[in-house]
């Protein structure tokens, strides 16, 4: 799959003639095959009420997202959300009346590559605005660049609290920081169940270790004894030594600071080694559709924080899910939703200002409060850290993902304790 510069999708009004299209495409200087433009114009016209056609030079919005490498599977959702928003905007009259052109690269999950690409976006492609990359490591590297050039960046795919501790003026969080991912699981669920001990295992990288250190602090505050606190290397293929320790100490909870691949690995090995904690929870992974596809019924009872779920009743959410499915033939996950929310916020801030001035945009993003498709609202503190978003907790029950906290958003009751592996139905 190619992940190079995405070409412009020029949404066209229903009444535009073929000649109009040719003229506009050439005015914009886009190397887009005319046939594709026609196809897209047709479908756009069919679903939306005629809007004024976007005119003028396109507004270039740059981003680098990991669509290959270790985080490629989740990063791809975010990249697709950016593209969805681009095509929607162009079909609906553009941004500030101008077409939107997303310039998206793939950083292969490598922070130094991400940093180089943001430099390329800003100094060579001369983008007007930027959106954030996927994963905290890449975001930290990219933030150096955006900070130097004074480009405000919505961090739509990362949440390690460190990002907002560097004194950056240009990073604005879209969702809850990693340190608070396990807040509900520890403060609500574990407390209600009367759990007293926990094991924490995490991958040795910025984001997973942030979720783990957050969990550790939360456990301490809640009077839960952390009996194992172990890290394992990036790209680990075996975490059985840590799991053996967990089995021997038999804590009530196993909390994993992890990305998708290592969450799956930990569950598989926990089953093999018969690690029977009463509660399993993983930071990234549990909420992914891929998680269930990889583990099937072994995913049951597993908890995880989720930044968004397709079923929640936020403004525009149903339309987002439907459009995403239509365009990419699969369900969005929460990384798609946070990416899309980032676009919504950027759009709102830019339209409030009425132009693309970066200083005004920075100020606007700092004081803006708005609803997105995510639960809660967009609101940041003085450092740009997100404070208004409400994270959810999900649990796999049967083949369904059920929201179990917070109370006003939940669509099912939690099922605990987790039965031991040998008592489970095959």
């Amino acid at each position, binding site marked *: 799959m190619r992940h190079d510069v995405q070409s412009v999708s020029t949404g066209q009004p229903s009444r535009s003639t073929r000649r109009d299209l040719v003229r506009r495409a050439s005015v914009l200087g886009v190397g887009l095959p005319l046939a594709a433009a026609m196809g897209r114009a047709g479908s756009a016209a069919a679903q939306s009420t005629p809007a004024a056609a976007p005119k003028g030079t396109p507004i270039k919005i740059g981003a680098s997202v990991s669509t290959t490498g270790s985080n490629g599977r989740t990063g791809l959702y975010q990249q697709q959300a950016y593209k969805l928003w681009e095509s929607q905007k162009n079909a609906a009259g553009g941004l500030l009346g101008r077409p939107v052109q997303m310039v998206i690269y793939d950083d292969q999950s490598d922070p130094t590559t991400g940093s180089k690409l943001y430099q390329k976006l800003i100094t*060579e492609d001369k983008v007007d605005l930027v959106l954030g990359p996927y994963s905290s490591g890449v975001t930290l590297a990219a933030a150096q660049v955006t900070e130097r050039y004074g480009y405000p960046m919505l961090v739509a795919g990362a949440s390690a609290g460190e990002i907002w501790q560097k004194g950056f003026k240009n990073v604005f969080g879209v969702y809850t920081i990693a340190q608070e991912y396990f807040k509900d699981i520890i403060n609500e669920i574990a407390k209600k169940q009367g759990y007293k001990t926990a094991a924490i295992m995490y991958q040795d990288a*910025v984001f997973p270790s942030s979720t783990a250190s957050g969990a550790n602090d939360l456990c301490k505050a809640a009077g839960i004894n952390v009996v194992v606190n172990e890290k394992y290397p990036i790209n680990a293929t075996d975490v059985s030594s840590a799991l053996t320790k967990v089995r021997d100490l038999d804590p009530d909870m196993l909390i994993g600071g992890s990305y998708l691949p290592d969450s799956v690995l930990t569950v598989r090995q926990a089953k093999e080694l018969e690690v029977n904690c009463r509660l399993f929870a993983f930071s990234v992974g549990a909420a992914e559709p891929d998680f269930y596809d990889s583990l099937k019924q072994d995913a049951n009872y597993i908890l995880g924080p989720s930044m968004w779920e397709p079923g929640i009743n936020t403004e525009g959410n149903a339309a987002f899910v439907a459009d995403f499915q239509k365009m990419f033939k699969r369900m969005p996950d929460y990384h798609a939703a946070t990416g899309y929310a980032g676009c919504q916020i950027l759009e709102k801030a830019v339209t409030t200002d009425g132009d693309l001035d970066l200083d005004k945009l920075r100020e606007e993003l700092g004081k803006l409060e708005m609803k997105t498709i995510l639960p809660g609202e967009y609101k940041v503190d003085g450092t740009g850290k997100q404070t208004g978003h409400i994270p959810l907790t999900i649990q796999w029950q049967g083949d369904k993902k059920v929201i179990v906290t917070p109370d006003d958003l939940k669509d099912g009751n939690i099922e605990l304790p987790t039965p031991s592996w040998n008592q489970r139905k095959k």
Partner: protein
Amino acid sequence: MGAVTAPSERSATTLIAAGAEASVSGPAAKPMPAWEAYTGWVYLVVLIPALAVLVWLPSVASAYTVTLWLTVLLTINLASSWNVLSGYGGYVSFGHAGFFGVGSYIGALLLYYDKLSWIPAMIAAGLGTSLLALLLGYPVLRLRGPYFAIAMLAMSELGRIVVTSWSSVTLGGDGVYLPIVRFQRVKEGADWWGRVGVIVHNNQDYYAMLVVAILAVMGAYWVGTSRFGLELLSIRDDEVASQAMGTRVVRVKIAAFAASAFFPGIAGAIYARHVGYIDPPTVFGIIWSIRAIATALLGGQATILGPIIGAVGLTLVSERVWASDPNLFQVVFGGLIVLVVLFIPGGLISLLQQWGALPRSRRI
């Protein structure tokens, strides 16, 4: 890899014995071009304008282009140093990523803990890496061929693991985040010197890398034309015979090893400062070793100009391919190495020499 050697030359050992100095000519060599005697002048005529262009580049090019050329200079550093140990010395190293990573971390941590200002920190990184190489060199250089290659690979991995697990000092897998070097803007009504000052300030890392690359190339020229270089070549060809001829084998090898670690170390530190964020998998990635090896092989190992030509060619081409498709890039990169090793084992330089465009001189 160990079997890859430069095209047949008269044994370096006999050259030392005969006290030969200037040219190494194969029996079937084409006649020398008339300018062969003036190679030194040709260097000046070609390299000084090239240098001028590189110095002038940041004042006109975009920051991305500057970063691209910084990568070219970085690759010259890596490949030239690899070339000293592995091209001349025949000790094929798969561990230059280790030197690069160690240098990055020494430099980055000195800056992170605010121990030194940046220029001394960069120099300390180079010297520190060299020192480490001195300590490692004695045991590791007792191995030859594939054993040495594997040992170096293991050393590099060991470096990564130590840095990852020693988190009280190195911050572990979270990586090191360096303080931002903010840009200066040209003040209203600044004079020429003022503007130059701002350009230099905004491109400190580039100019630092340029200086180090110049030093690396000068070092390579010295190795290529000195008795030290001949001694290395003789060790490559036959270590025992070389020793019998009076080469102080251990001393020469360890000196080459330490020199070969210095430039990756200092270049790693400058690169870390340029990127501003490093973590162990990135700077200890095997790709840095591969990059050094591929560049030197493409240009021509055991030559002075080979690593330079290889670095410019490979970096610019790979950037072009990479930007259009990161997956295809790996295929092209790997394929290129295979083709070079199969068809032009002496690299581009040897091709030019066969065509008679370049003399078969040790000064090339």
